[in-house]
Each structure stands twice: as structure tokens, then as C-alpha cells.
């Protein structure tokens, strides 16, 4: 399965990544960073098709997708 990395130091909680994900693989979490921004999190990674839209649309370079095959 693909995995998401969210950088809590760079993320500003805009949730643009959540809205951009075509499969709803990402969701808002109940984690809040020290600045008070709500962090996104993996919601249902079965729905991730590896399009990397979240990574492309993030204004803060705070989310990255690790594609399963890339590891092996």
C-alpha cells in the first residue's frame, strides 16, 4: 500500500490536499501541531491511486507520497 508522510513542522492545516485527493484517501485528523494547525492524515490508503496530487497542490511542501513499488 502507498504511504503518506506529513511534516508537522511545515504543514499549515489548509487541507487543500484532502480536497484534492480524488479517492478520499486523506482526511483531516484530530492531531493539531504546536501552532494549532489541524494536520491531515491517512484515511483510507486503499483508495490512493498514486497520482501524487496532494504532493503537487500542497502550498507548503508538507506532504509526500511513498509509492509501494518504490520501496522494493
Amino acid at each position, binding site marked *: 500500500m502507498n*504511504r503518506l*508522510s506529513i*511534516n508537522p*513542522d*511545515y*504543514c*499549515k*492545516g*489548509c*487541507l*487543500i490536499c*484532502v*480536497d*484534492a485527493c480524488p479517492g478520499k484517501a486523506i482526511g483531516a485528523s484530530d492531531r493539531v501541531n504546536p501552532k494549532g*494547525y489541524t494536520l491531515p492524515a491517512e484515511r483510507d490508503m486503499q483508495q490512493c491511486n498514486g497520482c501524487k*496530487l496532494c*504532493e*503537487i*497542490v*500542497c*502550498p*507548503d*511542501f*508538507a*506532504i*509526500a*507520497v*511513498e509509492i509501494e513499488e518504490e520501496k522494493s
Partner: protein
Amino acid sequence: MTRHPMLKYLKEKGPAGPRMPTIMCPGCGAGQVLNYTLHAVDEIIHNDGTRKEDFVFISGVGCSARLTSHYLNFDSGWTIHGRSLPIATGALLANPSLKIVVFTGDGDAMAIGGNHFIHTCRRNLDVTILCINNGLYGMTGGQVAPTTPTGTATATTPYGNMEEAFDLCKMAETSGASYVARWTTAHPRQTIKSIKKGIGKKGTAFIEILSQCPIHMKTPPVEMLRDFKANTVSINKSRGHGEDKILIGEFCHMERPEWTEKYQKILEQFD
């Protein structure tokens, strides 16, 4: 932790400490345009042998203008409000083989910098102008700009803007730019493709990217992005319908002699 692939092009630390996260407000479109631009530049570097050293990024003043030397691990200059294009012109004349990319806000490009803008297009200088149009002066508090849509309330037009806005793409096209396109931050893949084309184009490439300032528009960024999708129509599909919508797409893509090439021909007469 997997790191964002574009962080390799960014300065995360400077002499005075960390530079990231950026100064931009949460959900600001300027950061998205930076991400799209780096994706385009990354593809160019990987696919056609252009080196990182061949790029120069120049900006003026404004929130959108903060995208250059603060964060970019490229040759870059954060310069004077409205004057990014004269400085880009100087860099180009010093070394015509450079790939020059200018980040400019709508105010920077078309209010204080309007004259430089039309003359750069008229000369068809080989620069790529990425105009982050949020329809107001973001950095100074959300005042009305010559690009603010009619009726929009801003800090200085609380009853709605009564003026008409400039159409930046028409201005670029009629002034002589070789490549002219408009997209929005809600069109990531189209914007990346267009930036690649613009950088590859010999001559002035002007790409307007409608962008959200969620702070001064007092609207959540996700809502503004949805509105960009709903309120735009592609020039290829519009066929005269949807005049109430904003046209997006490529408006002009033509071959016109570029300034430094013409100048080189004159110099060659004296070899």
C-alpha cells in the same frame, strides 16, 4: 519519513536559522504556484539537459514576490516593487542563454510595474513571466488593485469595487508576447504543462495564474479553489458560451523574433 520531492530545490535553512515553513498564510496560492513551478523546472532539468545553473528567478515585492531568494536554491533575486522585468532584462542581456523566470503579483506586474510589463512583451524578450493574480495587494493589507474584479469588496472598496479590471492576458497578447495563457491554482497539471511550454518558448511567455488570498478574501482556501473550478471555462470549450465565466487556457502561441536574437544579428555584422 519521505520528504517532499521539491524540497531539494529549496533552502530550508539560512544563516539566521530555518526558512521553512514559508511566510505565506495557510492555504495561500503563492505556495502552490511555487510547487507547480518547481515541478515544471524539475521535468525540464530531467528531460532536456538544461542545468539547474541555467535558471534564474527574479521577483519584485509582494507576497508572491517572496518566492525567490528566500527559499530557492537557484540563482535568484528579490528586487524592487514593479521592477522585476527591467532587472530580468539586464540579466538576459548579460547572458541571453539563461532561462529567466519572473514571479510577479498582479499589483507588481500591472499596477506599479504596468509600463515595464507592456514593453517587455513588446520587445518579446526571452523571459517567462508567472503572474500570481490574487486580485488585490496581499502584502499591504488587501487593498483594491487594477485586477480586482468588479463588485469585489476589498479593504479599500468596502462597498464593492466599482471599476473594471485589466485583462492581463489580452494586455500581454496585444503588446506582443509569444506565449500567453491563463490558469488557476485549481488547475495544477495544466499549469505545470503551461509553465514548461513557457520556459521552452523563445520570446516572452506570460502565464497568469489566478490565485487565492484566503486571508484578505476572508474565505477558506478550499472554497476559493472550488470556486476557481466552477467559475472558469476552457477557451477550447467555451465557443462563445459561458461569457459569465473566466476564460482559461492558451490564448496565444506563436513564433515572433526575439529581442536578443535580433540584437545578436546586428552584432554579427561587425565580426
